[in-house]
């Protein structure tokens, strides 16, 4: 899966995340942060919201996030979708990962082709996205 980088501001600026999937399947989203020491922190999840949306949630302060990796995972269940549409739903799956509070301000990342795959003959789709936090070395 392709990883992405979100540049942090120096100091105590708070970085926030919002996840917005677009799919006619039943979607679940979970966001976790893996810190440099290996600690795993829960950031947020979509609960029983079948749209899979994680509303804007704080990830942490810039000073605490350096070299951490934000990992968002999605599972989509296509029980409510006719089988002949499963491939189409997979091909047209869109997930927007919105981050703000960083050096470049609000930034959207999108699910890439190699981030997602079909499971169990296409009835389920999974997607994983890893976003690294770094300080921009360029002035």
């Amino acid at each position, binding site marked *: 899966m392709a990883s992405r980088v979100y540049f942090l501001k120096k100091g105590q600026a708070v970085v926030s995340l919002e996840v917005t999937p677009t799919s006619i399947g*039943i979607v679940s989203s979970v966001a976790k942060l893996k810190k440099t020491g290996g600690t795993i922190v829960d950031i947020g999840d979509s609960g*029983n919201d079948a749209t899979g949306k994680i509303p804007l949630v704080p990830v942490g302060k810039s000073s605490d996030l350096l070299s951490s990796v934000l990992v968002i995972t999605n599972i989509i269940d296509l029980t409510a979708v006719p089988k002949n549409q499963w491939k189409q739903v997979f*091909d047209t799956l869109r997930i927007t990962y919105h981050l703000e509070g960083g050096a470049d301000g609000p930034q959207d990342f999108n699910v890439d082709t190699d981030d997602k795959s079909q499971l169990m003959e296409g009835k389920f789709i999974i997607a994983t996205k890893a976003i690294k936090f770094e300080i921009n070395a360029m002035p």
Partner: protein
Amino acid sequence: MQCLNKYKSVLFFLCVATTMKSSAQNLELKDLNVPNSPAFTILDFSPKVIDRPGTAKAFTASIVNLVTQEGGNGIPKNFALEVAPYWLFKNNLTVYRYLGIDPNTKKQNNIFSNSRNASVSVGSVYKDSTKKLPFSANYFAFGARVNCIRVVRGNITEPIVETVKGIAGRLTTINKAASDTCLKKVADPTKPEFKTCFEKEVTDRIKKDDDLAKLEKRLENLLAIKPAFQVDVALAGSMTFRDNSIGEHHHHRSGVWTTLEFNLPLTNTKDIEKMIENKNYLSIYGKVRYIDEDSTTNYQTFATHKLLDFGGRFEFEFDKFSVSFESIHRVNRTKKELNSNRNVGILQYKIRDDLYLSGTFGKNFGTVNNLVALLGLNWGFGKQSLIE
């Protein structure tokens, strides 16, 4: 295997033979059902392979393939293409908008939501000259079908929303556990190994999750409950191209169909659990079809037939078995003396989704040779049984 294939072929021709027409008056076209693929129905054929491109790119590739088939001369021969245009492009639908249900009020908020599945079909059948029709021609057709209105039973929308939420909740539990496991197992989550781990963990957990399986089954059963009311419309038109020449064309046949359907479950409709278990329905259909055909035996002179069929069907369905009575009045707008009726009883048993055993008995259109007595197997043709 050869014997089975031969047997299938015999059954195939038995079924097809009952639907072939010899004149517009004896027009069969699978009684009045709104056809799944109007273009193929107006041509009176069930293609073995239907190209169904699911993306705009695939659709473009299919069209390019067709256009270049004849080297750019003439109409492509013997092809079948069907596409649902709405789904070729990106959309902003969520599961609730797709189902036409508001998750807050838990009521249906869009009776037109199924119209997104409207489909367009295009096809052609090339027929070489025969004694009966001494000219070769390519019959080209296009059609469209839409489920315009679908009104679900009021008391199933809330259980649907609750079940969908339940499934989402189970997925989140699985998601959290799988993500935790893989973040611990895989040192660097940016590497492909993390995704591979997540795929395996999710698959293993879903297979063991009985609660998820029960909720999915419940959702399937809720969505399978027949709507209280729905309306389908289809239209199709076809042209004949003699010797597959674009200049030598003539109108062949065109038609429009509409069906109104009312369904009443034969159970206590206030008890949702009984509704879910119920497989028995009383259905009433109102149907109208208009067909306009120019028939010919020599491609020099054409006889025009304009037929208006209207009628209804009364059907009892008991799980896999159904019994119905259909009455259709045909108005021949070209020759009023040919007005007639068709009154048939139909028995059908569903062996499986693509295999039906059916018998049709009664009086067909016309005044001679109008006894209908058919018994046969409908085997996976166009995914449509004699009764829909």
